[in-house]
């Protein structure tokens, strides 16, 4: 249950009550600072700190009535510390990932909250004495960034005193300097650090294993009786709510794609289950708040009791599209296999969407590229006439995948990420190395999505059956039909689309093709190194590629016509009715998914009307657990109601709260572009 305070604040933020305090960077002269920096020849490393100083100084401390966890953005946009010309020059010389700023990794928040800002700052300052020139520049930029953040906290403290909120002022006075000693301080310090990361221009800022690093404070407060259970819960709600306040300002493909993922549960290196009271409270808080942030991941394994799945299922039923379930039994060995140390692998979290990443230790770029399985199989049809049996044809596919892996891997040369001194403060090893995190960390691996797997598998299955085994469709006929987008080939189209074998029906022969494709992908990337010495990780995610990769994709042998989308992530084709969720779960857990450890969940849509009582919720929990027990790596469930979605498309004004899972994130349905809306509606055409 939400408390009256939280209800009021939620309503206030929802109505944009806090938007009236926002100002543009232009109105504050922040947008032209880059020109000043350029004219003065200030190095990028220092510019990052200077811009952060200017931003935090421009922020107007605002504390809204009833707020317990404060910090609200009042500057609507973070300008760049490079001019447009400088960006163009950087782009001509370097590979820039997305917009060139640091994104999509996970900081070590636990240590930062425990140590506190002042002690951390001192360590960075002392390190300057033994650093080289580049190191001193970095360390100074880091120290200045911490000071800027402390300055903002001090101004919030003054604001709280002015308002007569002494309790808040004391919390702020403490967290400006010291490590947290109470649950409230821990949440408030976390809020400022997280706020700072966004304010420094970094994005897809994740929250990591919140229930682990917050638990000591929560437990100590509760055990000592300092903090009653209900007040602790209200503080938790306040923090979760705060994650939503500024989310419309965060950069992403679509609003909601902001990467504020938070991971619950899981285990440690000894195998001990770490799900605790706070984990359960987080699931409850997310349910009660019913907002898109933070995005919950639940780490589970074969020993996770059904009761925990039920807590997750209850939140799943809420229809927010999370929790996403991550299977430690597959993910941890998968990460170890790729060279992650066991203690790090056990500490994995989830980056913006589903990509597994190690907090504090990884400068992995988990979404650097994508291999289009569907596109590759589509191209291979041109060569189909050269093979007289399926195995030879598959060897050709395998070679194509390997070549594509090499091509992709060769594409990311001379990477440049704009320096991020504040983020660096919260990453391991930056102090010792005296180097910005963007230059590298313990892990520097690149992740490659694998898109359109079901489209590729279904296409291969159809080719194997009709072209090679039955010989009922000739290569020429298939090629002609695909070239004609099935115009004039209605019977063939129907056969391919509705009668051909499909992945998702628990058909071993077809499902084995998926396992082979994923193995080919993993083999194709094996041994390749990126320029930072890191490896390449194969994944089953699509991100926005399920739209991009489909645009230029001609008709495919699975009966998909040109322009029709491909399934999101690791999911069955949308154009045919499958046997049902049990078969889908079995089909999608057959391959060795520890070899697809860049992540990308099986996504199943379920009608929300199915889960109206406790018993049915338990069955949902069992279904989720089954995927884990069978060796699936990651699962996302949407509970959707088609009528609601259609009505929301027609009358967005009536559905401003409707939340859907899009690819690795949840967003407000009415705020999505039409193509995404349609895709979600299409996905449930065959609601199971």
């Amino acid at each position, binding site marked *: 249950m939400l408390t009256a305070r939280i209800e009021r604040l939620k309503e206030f933020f929802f109505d944009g009550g806090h938007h009236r305090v926002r100002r543009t960077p232009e109105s504050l002269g922040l947008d032209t600072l880059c020109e000043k920096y350029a004219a003065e020849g200030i190095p990028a490393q220092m510019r990052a700190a200077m811009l952060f100083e200017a931003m935090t100084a421009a922020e107007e401390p605002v504390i809204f009535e009833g707020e317990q966890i404060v910090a609200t953005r009042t500057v609507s946009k973070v300008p760049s510390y490079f001019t447009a010309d400088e960006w163009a020059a950087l782009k001509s010389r370097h590979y820039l990932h997305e917009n060139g700023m640091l994104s999509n990794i996970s900081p070590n928040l636990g240590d930062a909250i425990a140590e506190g800002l002042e002690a951390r700052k001192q360590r960075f300052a002392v390190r300057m004495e033994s650093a080289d020139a580049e190191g001193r520049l970095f360390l100074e930029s880091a120290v200045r960034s911490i000071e800027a953040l402390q300055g903002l906290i001090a101004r919030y403290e003054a604001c709280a005193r002015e308002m007569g909120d002494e309790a808040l002022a004391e919390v702020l006075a403490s967290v400006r300097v010291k490590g947290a000693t109470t649950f409230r301080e821990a949440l408030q310090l976390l809020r400022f650090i997280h706020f700072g990361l966004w304010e420094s221009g970094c994005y897809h800022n994740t929250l990591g294993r919140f229930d682990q690093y917050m638990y000591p404070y929560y437990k100590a407060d509760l055990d000592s009786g300092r903090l009653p259970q209900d007040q602790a819960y209200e503080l938790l709600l306040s923090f979760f709510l705060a994650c939503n306040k500024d989310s419309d300002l965060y950069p992403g493909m679509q609003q909601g794609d902001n990467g504020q993922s938070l991971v619950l549960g899981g285990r440690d290196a000894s195998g001990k289950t770490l799900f605790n009271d706070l984990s359960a409270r987080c699931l409850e808080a997310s349910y009660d708040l019913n907002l898109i942030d933070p995005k919950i991941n639940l780490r589970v394994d074969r020993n996770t009791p059904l009761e925990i799945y039920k807590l997750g299922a209850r939140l799943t039923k809420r229809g927010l599209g999370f929790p996403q379930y991550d299977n430690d039994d597959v993910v941890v060995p998968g990460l170890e296999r790729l060279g992650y140390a066991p203690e790090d692998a056990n500490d994995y979290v989830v980056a913006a969407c589903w990509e597994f990443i190690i907090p504090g230790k990884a400068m992995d770029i988990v979404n650097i590229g994508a291999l289009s399985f569907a596109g590759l199989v589509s191209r291979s049809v041109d060569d189909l006439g050269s093979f007289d049996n399926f195995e030879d044809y598959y060897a050709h596919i395998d070679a194509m995948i390997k070549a594509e892996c090499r091509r992709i891997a060769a594409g990311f040369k001379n990477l440049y990420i704009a320096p991020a001194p504040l983020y660096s403060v919260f990453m391991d090893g930056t102090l010792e190395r005296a180097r910005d995190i963007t230059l590298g960390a313990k892990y520097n691996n690149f992740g490659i999505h694998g898109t359109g797997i079901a489209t590729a598998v279904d296409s291969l299955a159809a080719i194997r059956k009709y072209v090679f085994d039955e010989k009922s469709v000739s290569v020429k006929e298939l090629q002609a039909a695909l070239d004609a987008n099935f115009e004039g080939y209605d019977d063939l189209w129907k056969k391919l689309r*509705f009668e051909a074998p499909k992945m998702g029906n*628990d058909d071993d022969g077809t499902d084995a093709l998926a396992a082979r494709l994923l193995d080919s992908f993993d083999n194709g990337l094996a041994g390749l190194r990126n320029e930072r010495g890191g490896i390449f990780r194969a994944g089953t995610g699509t991100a926005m590629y399920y739209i991009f990769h489909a645009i230029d994709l001609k008709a495919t042998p699975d009966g998909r016509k040109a322009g029709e989308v491909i399934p999101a992530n690791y999911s069955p084709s949308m154009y045919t009715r499958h*046997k*049902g*969720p*049990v*078969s889908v779960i*079995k089909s999608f857990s057959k391959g060795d998914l520890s070899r697809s450890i860049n992540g990308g969940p099986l996504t199943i849509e379920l009608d929300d009307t*199915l*889960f*109206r*009582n406790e*018993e*049915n919720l338990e*069955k*949902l929990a*069992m*279904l989720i*657990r*089954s995927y884990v*027990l069978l060796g699936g790596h990651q699962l996302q469930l949407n509970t959707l109601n088609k009528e609601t979605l259609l009505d929301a498309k027609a009358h967005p004004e009536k559905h401003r709260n409707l939340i859907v899972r899009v690819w690795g994130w949840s967003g407000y349905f009415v705020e999505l572009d039409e193509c995404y809306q349609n895709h979600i509606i299409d996905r449930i055409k065959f609601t*199971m």
Partner: protein
Amino acid sequence: MASGTIFSIEEFAINDGPGIRTTVFLKGCPLRCAWCHNPEGLSPEPQVFHGADGDRISGTVIEARELADELLRNREFFAMNGGGVTFTGGEPTMQPAFLCEVLDLLEDVHKAVETSGWCALKVYADVLDRVDLVLQDLKLADPAAHRRWTGRDNAPILANLETLKRSGKPFVIRIPLIPGVNDGIAEMEAKAALFRDAPGLRRVELLRYHKTAGAKYPRVDMTYRPGFDTEAQPVVYKEVFGDIETLVL
């Protein structure tokens, strides 16, 4: 080896018994309940169904062995999740040889049958022997009303209900709540009196009438003529069942 006609196999059927279950729909039914929402289950023959992607045939003739093998693919999955297989329809007892053979072939899988109970005593007893749970429908206690709304006398149903009660086999009573037809207090009392004291009774499930019941009739070239007020809300008298667990689904 018997073969039978089925019109659907539904995985993860969450309202048809314990755990994760697959429900098999057998085609053909001796009753013509005015509120039936599965018109393609009425005729025992395969028939044309005008689907969203064009016409298809509703109704597949399948051998008992083939169906059992298909269901047994999920044997471990069912066991892992306290589930099994449920047979419904149509009216599954209309194909007794086929049904019994499939039930036998399923061996240790948990088996349930949902039935109107309108069948011969021998058939009912044979099926009862082979299942772990019965989902026993009960539409109307009043014989005249039963004839009027289902087209059949309820005498065989009541006789089979006695067999069920005597057997001690676990069962669930399922009552569709049809506004103005069977939801009156006297009728509900009469129904409750029929099974209230049975030791095998696990619970009562009241299935609320949904006005989309008529949605599939045009798909099989039929007209939905319910003959009662489909807009009315049924009355829910849970109290007549006393201490028995009663769910409204």
